[in-house]
């Protein structure tokens, strides 16, 4: 009897101990050095508040590929953001659960750390604000953050990874948003042939590519500028209009008439692999797109002045189109696309 009491006393003592002086577990989670390419524009300032870390990125990548983020566990971020397509896909418009079709073309997820605006209309200014949108959108994953957290909590490996990534905080909504953003910050494409030519790494343009580069500098670079090949401005360039009444382009955000059907100038990096083109996939091929610009675009009050000043077109000869496409293909980064180890 005495022994028993002593045992119980001991147990109580230990319980007391463990609750009273819990040693905070320390998590080693080193920051990852972002490999910032020469001449790229400045980082989005949000990156500094959510610097990629070893486990943050590992967690973000795991979540990016996890179908549990969708209501019926059928799609993940990576269903529409496929590496071989520069983390875009080949559907004109995004396709969510149960085959539901969204409003716009899934944009490539590349060089996000250097972007100041996200999505076609620039509705998000911080990458951390974006992951919730597809999670809750009816035409995408149609879930909710609590539903997602509930699923992840049944998986001990997630609990451990969240703890490692965010100092023992466990599974949180912010942990989901921040880790996905951290992973996406690491998706940097800067090893295309174009980059290697620029960096004098032994590659040279073919004649056609070089001529295409000249055409590009003459007729494209005023919008597709900087090493991201976008000036990140919003422009109406008279592309065929999305018949969905939900579409208004940038005006959806600003409410300004002058922003009607203006869209963010897309990057041209890896464009060879992101067909179809345009905000709702209006053009199946680059040839179609260039033909359209050459033939003349839709008139609009707010049509970009560059087009207005040129009779609503960008005139291109057949040879110029061939050369331009040859040049654009030099922007393909096979390493980034996962075609090369």
């Amino acid at each position: 009897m005495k022994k028993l009491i002593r045992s119980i006393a001991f147990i109580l003592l230990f319980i007391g101990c463990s609750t009273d002086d819990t040693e905070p577990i320390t998590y080693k989670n080193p920051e990852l050095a972002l490999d910032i390419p020469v001449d790229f524009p400045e980082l989005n300032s949000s990156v500094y508040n959510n610097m990629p870390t070893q486990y943050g990125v590992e967690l973000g990548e795991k979540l990016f590929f996890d179908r549990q983020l969708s209501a019926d566990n059928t799609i993940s971020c990576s269903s529409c953001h496929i590496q071989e397509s520069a983390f875009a896909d080949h559907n004109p418009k995004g396709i969510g659960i149960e085959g539901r079709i969204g409003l716009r073309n899934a944009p490539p997820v590349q060089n996000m750390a250097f972007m100041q605006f996200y999505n076609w209309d620039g509705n998000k200014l911080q990458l951390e604000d974006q992951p919730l949108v597809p999670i809750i959108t009816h035409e995408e994953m149609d879930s909710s953050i609590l539903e997602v957290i509930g699923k992840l909590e049944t998986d001990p490996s997630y609990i451990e990874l969240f703890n490692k990534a965010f100092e023992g905080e466990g599974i949180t909504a912010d942990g989901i948003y921040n880790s996905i953003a951290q992973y996406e910050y690491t998706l940097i494409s800067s090893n295309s042939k174009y980059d290697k030519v620029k960096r004098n790494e032994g590659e040279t343009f073919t004649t056609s590519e070089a001529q295409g580069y000249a055409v590009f500098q003459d007729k494209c670079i005023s919008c597709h500028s900087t090493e991201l090949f976008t000036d990140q401005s919003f422009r109406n360039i008279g592309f065929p209009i999305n018949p969905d009444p939900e579409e208004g382009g940038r005006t959806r955000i600003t409410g300004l008439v002058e922003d009607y059907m203006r869209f963010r100038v897309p990057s041209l990096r890896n464009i060879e692999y992101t067909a179809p083109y345009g905000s709702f996939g209006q053009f199946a091929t680059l040839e179609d797109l260039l033909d359209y610009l050459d033939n003349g675009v839709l008139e609009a009050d707010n049509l970009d002045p560059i087009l207005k000043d040129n009779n609503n077109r960008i005139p291109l000869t057949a040879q110029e189109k061939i050369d331009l496409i040859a040049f654009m293909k030099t922007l393909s980064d096979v390493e980034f696309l996962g075609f090369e180890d």
Partner: protein
Amino acid sequence: MKNLKKYILSAAVVVAFMSCSSDDNNPVANNVTLEFNNTFGDTPIVLGDATSNAATKNTSDAGQIHHFEEVKYVISNIRLIKADGTEIPYHVNDLDNGATVVDQSKPETLSYVMSDIPAGDYTEIKFGLGVRSDLNTLDQISFPTFYENAGANDTQMHWEWGTGYRFTKLEGFYDTDNKQLSFHSGSTVEGEEGAYTQGVDAYRDITIVLPTTTTVGNSAPTINIKADFDYFLSGESHTVTLVSTEDITNNATPSAHTATEMMKFVENIGGNGTTDHTGMFSVTSVEN
């Protein structure tokens, strides 16, 4: 014996307190009910589909007949103001306990009961049409109840792409051929209040002087609030002509997601924020 004495004393104390509270003629707090009456002018709105005969029809200043199939809006940030100017906020930072979706198709949502309003005489009410930007983030973690109510399949007051709430959702029909009318409002602002980096703020703060002093105490008063949707097309700020062409400078039917002109409607129903702080709202009476 000693114990028994103590026991009796305690019981006596308890009884004393109980009698206090039950006899008290001046309770420290009571309920206040906001009763929302959605109208066209003085006529209550009856909803109906395109060809409904029962639906309440209205004609705008521009001469367009119209009626609604859905009328929903968010009320939040409610404050009652005493005669001496003291503001009594009602869970203004808590959407679960201080915000509601008024939905004409659900009679129970037309009465919003606020509990524990401190006793006193109130002369003014303030509330928000929509959700203040600092709370407008579709934060299911912080406000799961409001999130769920607003997002229910038959309510659809989430604005997913903006990760905010829809503030107003009106669906209906206009002109004699019953063309579709659809108006959704919501905010798209980014950044901190006072220093927004982009977007429009569709939240509107409404201020109404009460026609009768509202006395909270023994009575649990009801404030009858009229939301006159005639203002939607024929408001203080704008006379709107609905169009279904691609003329975006006129307005944005059938969907105001494309609303270059969304703010016109917002100003009509919620005021322009400077000279008009009532929009479509008025208090018709107070039942003390």
